[in-house]
């Protein structure tokens, strides 16, 4: 259940979206200002390149502007923007985003939030995430950092949910190996 403050914010944002849909550039700028932080953060983590992240962020908003008429106001505008950003980031890759990956031999139980064994510096963990293969990194960013469910992430990435789960499991294993090269402390 959303709070009154969240409800107010949703109404406020819906009003801006409606105005932007009617061609109000200033309303669209307000939406841009509201969401650019998350969109750029997502783009940067997916592209690993500041220049590419800027292009990705701009393309996201351009596509959003063009697609406003198709946006269903009942949905969260931010989530819709994220979907666009993921599409833009994936489309920029020169090779297919996903190669066929073997599933891990044993499945571990799903943890709702993966807690690290010991505190790790932000810079170190961001570097480790960035070093992951594309598919694993995409899922880890969407699910592990941005909190999307397997279903949502698989839909954004255009893959089956099972594949998404497998990639997340793989990402965690690779990340743990990178952060704790000599095993868990």
């Amino acid at each position, binding site marked *: 259940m959303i709070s009154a403050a969240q409800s107010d914010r949703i109404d406020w944002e819906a009003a801006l979206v409606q105005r932007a849909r009617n061609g109000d550039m200033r309303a669209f*700028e307000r939406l841009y*200002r*509201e969401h*650019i*932080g998350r969109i750029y*953060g997502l783009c*940067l*983590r997916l*592209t*690993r*390149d*500041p220049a590419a*992240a800027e292009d990705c962020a701009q393309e996201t908003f351009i596509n959003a502007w063009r697609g406003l008429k198709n946006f269903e106001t009942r949905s969260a505008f931010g989530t819709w923007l994220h979907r666009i950003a993921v599409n833009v980031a994936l489309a920029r890759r020169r090779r297919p985003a996903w190669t066929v990956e073997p599933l891990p031999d044993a499945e571990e139980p799903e943890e709702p939030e993966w807690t690290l064994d010991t505190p790790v510096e*932000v*810079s170190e963990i*961001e*570097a480790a995430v*960035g070093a992951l293969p594309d598919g694993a990194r995409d899922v880890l960013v969407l699910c592990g950092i941005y909190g999307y469910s397997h279903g949502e992430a698989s839909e954004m990435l255009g893959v089956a949910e099972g594949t998404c789960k497998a990639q997340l499991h793989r990402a965690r294993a690779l990340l743990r190996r990178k952060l704790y090269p000599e095993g868990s402390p």
Partner: protein
Amino acid sequence: MRMCSLWFALLAAGAVAAARAATFERHVPADPRGEVDVSNVSGAIDITGWDKPEVYVKADTRSDSTKVEVTSERGHVSIRVIGHEGGISLFGGLIGSGGAARLHVEVPRGSELDVSAVSADVTSRGMLGTQRLQSVSGDITADVSGVDADVKSVSGDIQLRGNAQPGHFHVSSVSGDVSLQNSAGDLDATTTSGEISADLSPAGSVRLHTTSGDLTVTGRVGSGGTVEAQTVSGDATVRAGAQNGYEYEVRTFSGDIDDCFGKPAERTSRYGPGKSLMGRLGSGGARLRINTLSGDVSLCDH
């Protein structure tokens, strides 16, 4: 593939900057009678006047990506809180925006102060110079001395405290309450649904207007002063004397009039509900006018 490590440095730097609350402090020299502008979108702005020829800024921000920009040039100090958004145009001026910060600012008390906020409460203490204080939804609390003060809010309450020195005060809120205490001089105060409370000794030119809120005026009307108070549906209470007395005129369409002068209100129409009360107290050097549509009026000189 050539690794571009800059992305990662940017990510880490930006990530830490975006996440962590930060404290900012700065001292800049300032003209004791110069101008100081302060703007902040959300949080709070606390201004204190002091006797040093400098401005001190301390800001607690929610994240490192919120910056505090302090510039000092030719007797003009500007303090702006800037986040990742651009500027916001507010009441005709442009302020920084986007970030949230609790600003504590100490300025020369003789400075001309200009404060703009959106969702930030504004407090000003110990200032002796002209003040222009504006907030959209924040409350404004200020000490006002014997100079000009222009205070405006959309939905916030405004509380001003004077030092008994005469000044010129212009106060406006759409829906907040307005209060000016221990002051003197000229006052123009308007609010639509808030209450107005004014205490001036002596009162010069006073105009008070509210649509549905109550009005309360206390103090003393100066020689030649005028007090005009109007409310559509609120009640008006005036407890004001005058050195040489005043002429008074009270009108209400459907409310009641109560006074301590022993003079009964007259009906303005044989068939309608309207009442009026007119008279003169003493030699009548000042003027008092009170109008309401349906509110009750209570008038006394003490």
